[in-house]
């Protein structure tokens, strides 16, 4: 736990008051109309939604999972967060198309793009899904805050979850999107500056850039291994991946479930030292684990071997049946630690922890995804910012600039995480090293700056929860209440319904937060990557292909919900298919889903041509729209 001094509390309380007051200051503007409560009257210059894009996508869980991937994969791990680059393309394509539509939400845009019963079903479905997703996101960022407060103050998880999300709800309930976007501007500045400060401190704590480079070149080699969930003896071997020759075997060691936390702490301290101590023996040795070691079952460790005695890559296996059979720990794993500073440390075309096939998949997701709408779950908050900009051009600039800041932020974070690795290289358990960025800040910043760091964390947290509270409320109000229940509702009534929906989302997020608990990274990778996979291509097709219809899109969504669980969890657990790497899960889902929505699209009628012409004239989509364009020209609605 950390003891806050008077100066820490002083800064924390001062910044918290400033943020909440500023958010609530726009109360009078927020209550004027539905358009003000959810889109700030569509009159914002580009730099305001841009700062909101940046602030929203910097949440308390973001440094946790960026630390997780950078600690584990080195700088290469930054590519995990590269999907945000879809905005670079979207800013000039789908952002412009969406802004021209004047729809409040993605669900409303789809009712302009599609028509008839399918469109109505789709709008209801997407609105419901978005209310659920926003509640879920609020739960996961809230529990990340709970986890952090548990680490800092020793509070139970639920306290951090409830207290700090509720603070954000105060100004969202008062001012709606006006409060969100104005507070985001201020919170974005605070968050960016504290991220830079902690990263500078992290690099300094590790001895500076040159020292980091030198130490990574001198450390022994490591590979992460989660021990099997069994009491047994085990042995590890290292092989040459090209020749298959066994280079070295470890001594026999034990795996037991009866290992205390204190023993784990002592072992981690020992592993830090083993990694840092240069081995003078010429022969290759496995330095950890050895025959006196007892490892905890189902726990992450670092295997350590003397670096510079193998080729560039090694394969690592373990056996728990006296060498009768072997299971993989790592394939084509790097020798030494210098690879951590290489952005392109591939482990093969398809093999190992970072294959080229994975990288290509991420590039496609990031760059081609920008042609569509909803290809990333970030699209939905972005869509609100696009519509709040005062012109199509402002919308483009805001999305581009906000996302550029997000990518720059990740790179700044990575500096602190690499510094953390140099100081504590022996952690193999993800829940320990995921907190790296926070630990650097709370361990090394002087008194006063620690309180400011927590104020920065609060800024990060408030910016995200305020966005998702308002966004979820917008879907509930605009796409459910106003569209289906009370189309005649006046502006005052709609604003009040928006506030009621905000409050319900707040309560729902507490329940989700407690369900998610501590397994943050695995939930995030599933939600960000796999759940979006099957609808990734339909999300592009709806923008660029006139023939794609609402039934095709709806069937893709429903099929994906089932298929993603089947491919990721259910079929592998029954041994029907192997555990696929995430990029293969992505392509498998793309292919299987296409087998559903393409036949559905062709077996159902195209959307009504008049409806499509109306949409085309308003939004001017790019891609395969020739029949619709010709019809619009024939009607004299656009020039040839």
């Amino acid at each position: 736990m950390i003891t806050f001094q008077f100066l820490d509390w002083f800064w924390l309380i001062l910044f918290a008051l400033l943020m909440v007051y500023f958010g609530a200051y726009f109360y009078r503007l927020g209550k004027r109309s539905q358009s003000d409560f959810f889109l700030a009257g569509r009159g914002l210059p580009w730099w305001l939604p841009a700062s909101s894009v940046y602030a929203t996508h910097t949440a308390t869980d973001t440094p946790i999972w960026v630390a997780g991937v950078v600690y584990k994969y080195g700088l290469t791990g930054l590519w995990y967060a590269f999907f945000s680059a879809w905005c670079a393309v979207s800013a000039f394509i789908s952002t412009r198309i969406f802004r021209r539509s004047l729809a409040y939400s993605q669900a409303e845009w789809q009712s302009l793009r599609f028509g008839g019963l399918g469109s109505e079903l789709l709008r209801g479905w997407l609105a419901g899904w978005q209310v659920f997703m926003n509640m879920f996101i609020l739960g996961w960022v809230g529990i990340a805050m709970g986890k952090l407060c548990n680490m800092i103050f020793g509070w139970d998880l639920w306290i951090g979850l409830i207290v700090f999300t509720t603070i954000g709800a105060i100004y969202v309930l008062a001012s709606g999107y006006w409060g969100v976007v104005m507070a985001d501007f201020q919170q974005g500045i605070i968050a960016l500056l504290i991220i830079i400060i902690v990263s500078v401190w992290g690099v300094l704590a590790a001895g500076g850039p040159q020292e980091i480079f030198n130490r990574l070149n001198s450390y022994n080699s490591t590979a992460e291994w989660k021990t099997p969930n069994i009491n047994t003896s085990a042995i590890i071997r290292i092989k040459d991946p090209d020749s298959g020759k066994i280079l070295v075997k470890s001594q026999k060691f034990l795996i037991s479930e009866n290992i205390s936390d204190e023993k784990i702490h002592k072992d981690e301290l020992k592993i830090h030292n083993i990694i840092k101590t240069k081995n003078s023996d010429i022969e290759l040795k496995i330095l950890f684990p050895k025959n006196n070691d007892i490892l905890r079952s189902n726990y992450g460790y670092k295997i350590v071997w003397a670096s510079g005695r193998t080729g560039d890559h090694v394969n690592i296996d373990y056996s728990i049946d006296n060498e009768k059979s072997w299971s993989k720990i790592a394939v084509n794993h790097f020798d030494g630690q210098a690879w951590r500073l290489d952005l392109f440390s591939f482990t093969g075309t398809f093999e190992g922890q970072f294959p080229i096939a994975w990288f290509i998949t991420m590039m496609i997701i990031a760059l081609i995804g920008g042609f569509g709408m909803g290809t990333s779950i970030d699209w939905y908050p972005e869509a609100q910012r696009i519509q709040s900009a005062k012109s199509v051009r402002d919308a483009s600039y805001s999305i581009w600039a906000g996302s550029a800041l997000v990518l720059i932020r990740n790179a700044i974070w990575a500096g602190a995480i690499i510094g953390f690795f140099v100081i504590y290289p022996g952690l193999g358990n993800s829940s320990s090293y995921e907190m790296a960025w926070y630990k650097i800040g709370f361990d090394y910043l002087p008194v006063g700056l620690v309180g400011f760091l927590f104020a920065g964390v609060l800024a990060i947290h408030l910016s995200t929860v305020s966005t998702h509270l308002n966004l979820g409320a917008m879907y509930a109000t605009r796409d459910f209440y106003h569209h289906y229940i009370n189309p005649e509702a006046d502006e005052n009534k709609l604003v009040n319904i928006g506030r009621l929906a905000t409050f319900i989302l707040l309560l729902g997020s507490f329940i989700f937060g407690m369900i998610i608990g501590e397994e943050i990274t695995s939930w995030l990778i599933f939600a960000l990557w796999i759940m979006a996979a099957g609808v990734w291509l339909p999300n592009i097709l709806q923008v660029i292909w006139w023939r794609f219809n609402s039934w095709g899109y709806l069937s893709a969504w429903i099929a994906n919900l089932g298929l993603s669980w089947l491919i990721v969890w259910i079929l592998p657990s029954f041994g029907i298919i192997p555990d696929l790497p995430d990029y293969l899960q992505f392509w498998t889902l793309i292919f299987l889903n296409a087998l559903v929505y393409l036949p559905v699209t062709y077996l159902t009628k195209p959307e009504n041509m008049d409806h499509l012409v109306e949409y085309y004239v308003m939004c001017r989509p790019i891609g395969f729209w020739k029949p619709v364009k010709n019809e619009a020209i024939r009607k004299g609605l656009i020039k040839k």
Partner: protein
Amino acid sequence: MNAFILYMVFQTRIGHPYLGIIIPALIFGISFILTYLLIRYFNKDKS
């Protein structure tokens, strides 16, 4: 959490204690001024 107790063993604060006053005060000042300018911008915009 477990490993955090271990980290405290290594804990060493870096930088002069005055930085805990100067840096947050500077950022608070920047944040306050920009906030004020933003409010003025929208008040002017409204009128």
